[in-house]
């Protein structure tokens, strides 16, 4: 250990210079701190007894951080805690059974055993085991508080606890930047315990901690847990200032984790840890009040509470993993109907939908890069909206991780955030927020919260933007339970889709728009000989149904085609060509919902044609098309289906137009594959 122990202790914060009688001055604070300490110790004992599944991150030595913050908060405020959050939880809500039950995995736990040690939620308290990612979420909560305050709801503040290990995460700095620029009432509490898991700060941290915050124009405070009375004062002053100014603040609190990071992974030498043991505030207090009957009574009371909680949790039943949707008997019955909408350019229809949302939903917020007027977004989908709703339509810095995280924070606080990611390719930067935050909150917080987050992003090529601005990478974002992925096509009005989405939003939703669609007409008029019909779902599947005059069974449709997103245009062209030139009748389905996807919508058509062709603009390997074929085989494999896919060639997308045309699915590719599937199936018994 190259670290100087004594550097963190100064004579001023030496614990021996304590108040005359802290127990009478701060009875509640000391009781909470002692509770945290005793609960953590009991959890370690439970772990040794084999009663805990998984692991347990204790905060022994850091109790006063949570205590100092929670005593200044009110009902409107929110807290985002991290993987080491037991202390934060107990200081926010002193519910021992809820915490112990949760860590023991029982239904009496605060999240029914779904969340465990790292994922707890109660009222305004949330925690997640992702370093860095929680910072933008807290910033988003602060943004929601600010917006609600501005509309008369009374503003709260948001608090986020980060460790010194989190200083290595970029999302933190994106959040600091936005919090400062937007004047968000958020407090970043940096628990500086000198170690990230097993790695000493001396190996990983460059420069000064507080200078980081100050560089963003955020006031940085500095306290430590050894001089805890001063910490309590500083924290109150700090939070009062946030409430007064509405500005963010950074509070570095030096502290020390006395026990291992998790369990059994402490390789710090005893002689290094021992001085911290001796100076630990709770240890010092215990020693000081060893013979005090008040302290003894407090200890006995807490111990009794803990034992009662352990016994109750032990006796409690296990929870349940089923969500509402998992209930049986929810198979959808598909009815087909006509829909009427205006024929107009895709981008205008999207803009109308967003405009409608802002008009009808006062809690709807649009954020994204370059979306404010006069620029109005890279594809002009938000043109003019910021002039009418300047508060709720905001330009952001180039910080995809943070803005999607802010979306999550807004969503947790009852807003409807609509985050525009300028190019779908940049969704990779939102992956953490989409996968580890948005998709998880509802389930792991035991169905107590909803995340109505909407991310809009254009994908697709054919514009010459080459490898990093042309991809269709939706396959990396579909399939997360409790999320939905929608995609627009030229046969269903984006205005209607967004209206229905805003009215029904209850889960994270990714809407994939297509660059080509923006400049095309959304067209309700079918070509001659076809009928354009839609399912009776909220996000319908459009179907270009051939209007054939057939009498016998099995002779109507030759091929069932599914086109996902923007390639629907090419598929439609191919369908018309296949009819004109080859006398083949194709039934074209254009779903607007990619996930969840139900093969049931294709079933009647597939039973007739027994030939399936799927057109997808992205890569085919482990993709939506693979999924559809898998579902089709599971449901209808006995019919002897033949299937083909038209997907992008396996290489990055080139810039030159002729090269791009070779790589991305076009009408020619679709016709070729359709004839291939016809040939294969020609001799099969029908």
């Amino acid at each position, binding site marked *: 250990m190259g670290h100087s122990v004594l550097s963190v202790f100064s004579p001023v914060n030496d614990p021996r210079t304590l108040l005359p009688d802290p127990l009478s001055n701060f009875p509640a604070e000391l009781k909470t701190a002692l509770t945290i300490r005793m609960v953590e110790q009991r959890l370690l004992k439970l772990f040794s007894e084999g009663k805990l599944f998984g692991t347990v991150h204790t905060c022994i030595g850091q109790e006063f951080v949570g205590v100092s913050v929670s005593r200044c908060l009110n009902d409107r405020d929110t807290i985002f805690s991290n993987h080491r959050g037991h202390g934060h939880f107990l200081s926010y809500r002193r519910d021992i059974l809820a915490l112990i039950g949760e860590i023991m995995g029982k239904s009496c736990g605060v999240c029914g055993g779904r969340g465990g040690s790292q994922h707890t939620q109660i009222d305004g308290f949330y925690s997640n085991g992702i370093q860095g990612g929680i910072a933008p979420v807290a910033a988003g909560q602060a943004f929601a508080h600010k917006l609600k305050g501005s509309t008369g709801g009374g503003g709260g503040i948001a608090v986020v606890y980060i460790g010194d290990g989190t200083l290595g995460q970029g999302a933190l700095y994106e959040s600091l930047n936005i919090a400062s620029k937007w004047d968000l009432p958020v407090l970043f509490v940096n628990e500086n315990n000198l170690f990230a898991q097993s790695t000493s700060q001396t190996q990983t941290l460059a420069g000064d901690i507080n200078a980081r915050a100050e560089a963003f124009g955020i006031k940085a405070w500095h306290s430590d847990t050894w001089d805890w009375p001063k910490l309590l004062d500083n924290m109150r002053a700090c939070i009062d200032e946030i409430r007064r100014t509405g500005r963010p603040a950074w509070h570095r609190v030096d502290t020390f984790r006395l026990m291992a990071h998790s369990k059994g992974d402490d390789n710090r030498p005893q002689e290094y840890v021992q001085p911290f043991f001796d100076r630990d505030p709770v240890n010092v207090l215990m020693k000081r009040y060893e013979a005090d009957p008040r302290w003894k009574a407090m200890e006995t009371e807490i111990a009794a509470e803990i034992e009662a909680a352990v016994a109750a949790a032990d006796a409690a039943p296990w929870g349940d993993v089923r969500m509402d949707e998992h209930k049986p008997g929810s198979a959808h019955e598909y009815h087909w109907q006509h*829909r009427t909408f205006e024929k107009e350019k895709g981008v205008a229809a999207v803009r*109308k939908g967003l405009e409608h949302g802002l008009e009808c939903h006062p809690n709807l917020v649009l954020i994204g890069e370059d979306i404010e007027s*006069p620029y*109005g977004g890279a594809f002009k989908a938000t043109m*003019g909206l910021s002039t009418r709703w300047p508060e709720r339509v905001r330009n952001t810095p180039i910080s995809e991780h943070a803005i999607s995280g802010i979306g999550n924070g807004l969503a947790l606080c009852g807003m409807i955030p609509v985050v525009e990611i300028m190019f779908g390719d940049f969704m990779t930067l939102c992956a953490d927020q989409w996968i580890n935050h948005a998709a998880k909150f509802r389930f792991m917080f035991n169905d107590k919260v909803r995340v109505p987050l909407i991310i809009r992003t254009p994908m697709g090529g054919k514009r010459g933007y080459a490898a990093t601005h042309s991809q269709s990478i939706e396959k990396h974002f579909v399939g997360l339970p409790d999320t939905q992925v929608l995609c627009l096509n030229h046969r269903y009005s984006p205005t209607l889709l967004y209206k229905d989405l805003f009215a029904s939003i209850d889960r994270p939703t990714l809407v994939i728009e297509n660059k080509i669609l923006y400049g095309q007409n959304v067209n309700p008029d079918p070509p001659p*000989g076809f009928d354009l*019909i839609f399912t009776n779902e909220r996000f319908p599947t459009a179907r270009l149904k051939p209007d054939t*005059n057939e009498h016998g069974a099995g002779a109507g449709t030759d091929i069932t085609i599914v086109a996902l997103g923007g390639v629907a245009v090419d598929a439609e062209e191919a369908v018309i060509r296949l009819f004109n030139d080859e006398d083949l009748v194709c039934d074209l389905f254009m779903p607007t919902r990619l996930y969840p996807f139900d093969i049931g919508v294709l079933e009647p058509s597939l039973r007739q044609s027994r030939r399936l062709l799927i057109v997808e603009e992205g890569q085919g390997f482990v993709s939506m098309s693979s999924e559809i074929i898998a579902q089709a085989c599971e449901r209808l494999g006995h019919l002897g289906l033949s299937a083909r896919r038209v997907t992008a060639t396996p290489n990055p997308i080139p810039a030159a137009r002729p090269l791009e045309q070779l790589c991305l699915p076009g009408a020619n590719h679709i016709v070729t594959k359709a004839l291939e599937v016809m040939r294969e199936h020609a001799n099969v018994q029908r």
Partner: protein
Amino acid sequence: MSTQTSSADPAPTLAEIRVPRETVNDDTVTIQDWHVSHGDQVKARQLLVSIETSKAVLEVEADAGGFVQILHGKGAEVPIGELIGRVLATAPAAVAGASTEPPRSPGGTQPGNGVNGSRGAASTPVRSSNRLRDRQQGTVGAGSGSVAPSDPRADARGSVEASADGPGTHVLPDRPAASLAISKKAQALIDEHRLDAQTIFAGHGLVREVDVIRHLESRIADHQREHPAPPSPATIARSAPIEPRAAASTVNSAYPTKSRGLFGDAASSAKDRGNRSVLWLAWNYFWRNWLLGNLARWAPRGVILPIHRMRGVKMGRDVFIDPTAIIETAFPENITIGNDVRITAGCVIMSHIKAPHYLRESGLVPVVLKPVILEDHCFIGVNSVVMPGVTIGKASVVTSGSVVVTNVPPYTMVQGNPAKVIKQFPKPA
């Protein structure tokens, strides 16, 4: 596209009017308004036309003075770079409908009326030839034609319900009017038969080759109804079996083994002979089977059918029988063939089974004599065998090398030994 190209116009072109690319979004744009009329004289840099893109309204001005020729009218949707007009040195020929307001192209959209500022046709000198006017106010300002419900919240609530069953939706079936598409193969047939597709197939959607074929078939059927031909023997056979005597089903063998007469086993027993006399048998063998049967196998195609008819085979019109086909060796009168039947090379159609003495007399394989009926439009593939008692239904196919032992339903394809159904054809209504 409504193009009023005056290709014969000799006037030299001074300037072309094209759609400029101004935005990455659009491949096509809409012509919002022409500020001049076809044939008008314009000055250089005079405002000519407003073009609506997804982003803005472009205004295109004349690069040179002259007479305007309009190629794409108001409301037309044209690709980027398209030539939408010219400035000519002399007045262009007047084209019908192109004088002041050229007809709108069928795919054209109605340009937003709130956007279009009424710029007069007066010549306003400006610096650049293409100017971009921001549409921001027009897009979201009040009365921009966007969604503006009277009670926005109610509309938000009603939106989902509407998607299930409400205004804006109506229940199937309801086919859009006047939508008829004809495939190239179908069109070729239509042209060949000079059919009036729009009338015949009115109410159809897609017209395929098979639809035209069915129409032609039904026309033939109508024709036959109006001018009845002699009824198909197959139909008669179905209603009244040939002759009770000939249709005698299984003839059990219980006659003495020693009585082998002049004609060998053919003269075995009266029952085996279908209660016919031995003399009849002799005649039969000599005339119908040996002479005519062999003659049919060597005869030129034109006389095959009359020979079979002489043998006693009941046959309709338009039948084809290959010379190498064998149509029953002993009891041709038990065979009934309908209209338009094709019996190809090497086929054997049998109406009797006569096993060797031992099997017959021990009762293991009784003698069988049953009529065979091939209904209209049957097709018997090469080297197929049709066994006694089988009826092959209308328009059915026996594929090559099959052995048919059971009845074949109409509109079916059978294959194999014993022949099994492998395909059902769609039946006409």
